[in-house]
């Protein structure tokens, strides 16, 4: 990896949490497209929640932030398993 990239990566303020305790698995994290669409007015007009550029970003209801599913924080709470589903959904 380029040293210019490696250096800031190495200086990250804190390493991300364990792989399975990421925002994407947290009960505070909303990744359901239509819910995101509803919470970001205008999103449908010249953008889309179904586009590749969104990756798997969602809304953290605890911190009120729009962030990547790969983030983590101290407030993580595992999403209760949804019967018949394997991906956490909005509360």
């Amino acid at each position, binding site marked *: *990896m380029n040293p210019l*990239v490696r250096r*800031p*990566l190495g*200086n*990250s*303020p*804190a*390493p*991300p*949490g364990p*792989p*399975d*305790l*990421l*925002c*994407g*698995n947290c009960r505070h994290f909303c990744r359901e*497209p*239509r819910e995101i669409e509803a*919470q*970001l*007015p*205008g*999103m*449908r*007009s*010249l*953008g*889309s929640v*179904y*586009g*590749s*550029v*969104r*990756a*798997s*970003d969602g*809304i*953290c209801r605890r*911190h*009120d*932030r*729009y*962030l*990547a*599913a*790969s*983030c*983590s*924080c*101290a407030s993580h709470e*595992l*999403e209760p*398993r949804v019967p018949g589903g*394997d*991906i*956490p959904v909005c509360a």
Partner: protein
Amino acid sequence: MAEVIESRGQALQRESGWRELIGKEDWWAIWIGLGLIVVAIGLLAGGGSIKWVAVAPTKWTHVSEAVAQFSAHAPQYLALLVLWAVLFGIATSALGYKLSRFLPAFVLVYGVSLVLYFLGQWDQASHYNLEPPLVALALGLLVSNTVGVPTWADAGLRVEFYIKTGIVLLGAGLPLTLIAWAGPVAVLQAGIVSLVTFGVIYFVAVKLGLDRRLAATLGTGGAVCGVSGAIAVAGAVGAKKEHASIAIALVIFWAIVTIFLLPLSARGLSLPTGVAGAWIGTSEFADAAGLAAAQAYGGYAGHVPGITGTPEAAVNAFTLMKVIGRDVWIGVWAFVLAIIATTRWERTGIQSKVSPVEIWRRFPKFVIGFLIASAIVTIASRGYNYADYKKVLQPALVAPLQALRTWAFTFTFLSIGLTTRFREFVTVGAKPFYAFTAGVVVNIILGYILSTQVFVDFWTRLGQ
């Protein structure tokens, strides 16, 4: 518990892996666009053509002619409706919409688009400034902001899905050699404008005391790819939800203004279509909005005195500038800004995992479809001399695909207006407005100078 956690980790990986192939509209745009192109080429090889179903109105003078034209081709228009409804219906079902909700909404979109397409073929349309993209947009805006749009119609208003499908089909009309020839200049011009515009918005925003994450979200929205750029960077830097909403509102406001402003300004300056397309591609904020402006301007060619170049040149120059010059860099912007946010900006209590893989994850995949479409048709047209190309390939393959593309764009332009409801926007505040507007002004001026002075010969040649 461990088993539960493990299965969720795997589920997340699956979702961001192969599942994306049916879970993201970029890939569906590729499947639909390339599927139509492959079928069209297959039919051509078998001595047929896709042109029967790729029906489009032709020029008319009196309403009676338009009615007669429609009556004569009614079965084809019905078949085309069925084709689009099946293709988009399968895709939207995979994205999570109920087919029973999508179909009636799409029939409405198709019906209104049909009227607008016919209107655009009136031989006096240009005289009265009734360019279909602008009429579709204005009509949509008027309806959605006055009487309103019924909620059942929402499922059919998929702006980005339609525009991405149209752009993949557009690739069929652009030879790969042309993309290779014009791409580097587009990247250079767009790169200059993107960096300067981002710098202006970010600098002004920070000077006004705004949060750096908001400044970066606004900057990318103005400099790279409108709403898509704004949300990509908002997610990468972990912006407040409210900040993403502010950026979206500002992008849409200025994108709508420039849809009308740029073509009218270019018309006043009598710019050649290729040059105007490059300017619009440099200075518009969103693909859908820019294509509306570029297609409207292309419609002036041959109808408005003093405007030279072909209608296609405006759309081609726009696409090269916007898609190749700006869109493909979204992931890079998100990656770089995520590193800066993680290492330089104030802590938020949230740890981000910054990885170069992010560049691929956020890459607008429909661009791949656009390039493959170009490659397929370039290969298919090998062995045809110019005369045969005009006589065989143009009417049986290229023109029908252009018609399908125009349909997809018309769905887009109508959907933009019908989904832009200004009363739903958040209050943005004066400071974000000033910062973003400063970038808009610099962007438009710099885009004009680069398109009409620095690279004018290049973009003029593209139009010839």
